[in-house]
């Protein structure tokens, strides 16, 4: 197992499956009367959140606490960060406090990478979302949710729809799902796709209606209304008409297909309320699976010594 989790692309198929299998065990343990596990007793996990994300922070916090870790929440609001303390000084502080693991959410792409490689601190770094780069635990929980419904993702057709250009969820999902053998299609207006996607292990399309009948799972990404102010699309209404998932579009999906959304949703924008609340929707399940995935990641990164496995 690696020391940090910075990019979904760093995971081999075996490592990804190990995390998913471990999460499966973690999930069943959550049904027990005593939800605490001793694996991270005496370890300190810092939730270092430079961006507001109560959902993700709570998910990591619950995961760390169920593994008996000591959890320190360090958020930009009301801390020295808002007074201009640098990432470096924050890292040095965490190091002095003896943080074994740092869960980092940051608005700047690459900030967790910098924490991990700068030498400012020695703990493991988990990327909890960096800028418009990646959000690997979200991709893992998405894959976990899909796997529970679809079985192995090998050869499964998964369609990701929306603001791929600005989406860290999309980047991590494309990388992870292709590692797991899925056939990934991303659908978006051309303005919301990176200009050159040749190195992405997926197919791109501008036509949602063409992609839906060939999808075992469809993931709708959050699209910010304000993007239309930068001319990414003409209006929210036109976006919804061309790229939103409503009941009529959902009817084009194969019978067993499921609908995902990483949240928070813009109901009525990229997804209609009746789709979000339909039986195909696994959106609530994604949230509950988030804790199991994060337990698995924290367990695998932090429970053992960081020495390499002997090759015997």
């Amino acid at each position, binding site marked *: 197992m690696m020391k940090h989790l910075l990019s979904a692309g760093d995971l081999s198929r075996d490592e990804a499956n190990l995390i998913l299998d471990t999460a499966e065990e973690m999930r069943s343990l959550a049904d027990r009367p005593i939800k605490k596990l*001793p694996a991270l007793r005496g370890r300190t996990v810092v939730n270092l959140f430079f961006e507001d994300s109560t959902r993700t922070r709570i998910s990591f916090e619950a995961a760390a606490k169920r593994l008996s870790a000591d959890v320190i929440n360090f958020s930009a609001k009301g801390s020295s960060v808002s007074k201009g303390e640098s990432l470096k000084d924050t890292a040095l502080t965490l190091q002095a406090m003896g943080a074994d693991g740092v869960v980092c959410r940051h608005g700047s792409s690459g900030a967790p990478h910098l924490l991990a490689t700068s030498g400012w601190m020695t703990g493991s770094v988990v990327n909890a979302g960096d800028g418009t780069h990646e959000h690997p635990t979200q991709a893992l929980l998405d894959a976990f949710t899909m796997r529970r419904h679809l079985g192995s993702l090998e050869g499964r057709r998964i369609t990701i729809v929306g603001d791929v250009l600005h989406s860290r969820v999309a980047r991590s999902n494309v990388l992870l799902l292709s590692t797991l053998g899925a056939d990934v299609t991303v659908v978006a207006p051309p303005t919301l796709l990176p200009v050159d996607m040749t190195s992405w292990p997926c197919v791109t399309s501008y036509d949602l209606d063409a992609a839906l009948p060939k999808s075992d799972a469809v993931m709708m990404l959050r699209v910010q209304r304000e993007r239309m102010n930068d001319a990414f699309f003409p209006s929210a209404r036109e976006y919804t008409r061309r790229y939103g998932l409503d009941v009529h579009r959902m009817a084009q999906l194969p019978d067993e297909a499921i609908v995902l959304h990483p949240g928070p949703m813009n109901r009525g924008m990229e997804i209609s309320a009746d789709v979000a609340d339909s039986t195909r929707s696994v959106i609530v399940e994604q949230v509950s699976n988030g804790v199991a995935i994060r337990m698995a990641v924290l367990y695998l*990164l932090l429970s053992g010594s960081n020495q390499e496995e002997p090759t015997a």
Partner: protein
Amino acid sequence: MSPAHSAESPDVAAAPKPAPRTVLDASDISRALTRIAHEILERNRGADPVVLLGIPTRGVGLARRVSDRIAAVEGQSVPTGSLDVTMYRDDIRLKPPRGLEHTDIPPGGIDGKVVVLVDDVLFSGRTIRAALDAIGDIGRPRAVQLAVLVDRGHRELPIRADYVGKNLPTSLVERVTVHLTEYDGADAVLIADKTGTGAKA
């Protein structure tokens, strides 16, 4: 992943390998498990209170076999499951992170029951200590008993087995390996110098 069939043997250095010696063959193992099944019934005056929990990997297969024998004798099956102890091990910090094995607590749970832990080899006793902690997080059994196929001695904790297939005096430089058909293609208990065995660990 944990090399569960020799989990309690410390790592070894490479050296010339003497051939492993078979100390129990398939029929020895079969007889031992039948005897253990009878002893469990005798000690607990029947199968009613008993829950069998195998410790992965090979303890789980042994628990199933004991369970089958009890069912054959009593005409009544005992709840049988598995208990992973990875997160409760006292050496968790010392080794690279490991994946979890499956924990499967039978419906009905363990509260008020007699839990019989089943493992392949009893050595230092640390695995059983971890299992006792794991049980404590799941419920409160009336009693916990321990069945092992082989007790090779060298305890490091005050733990003893209630049911033993075979007491096998060993030296610390030896490695005991249990093979079961469902995992390894054949039943056998092997012993070899730690300097090298046929073990796949």
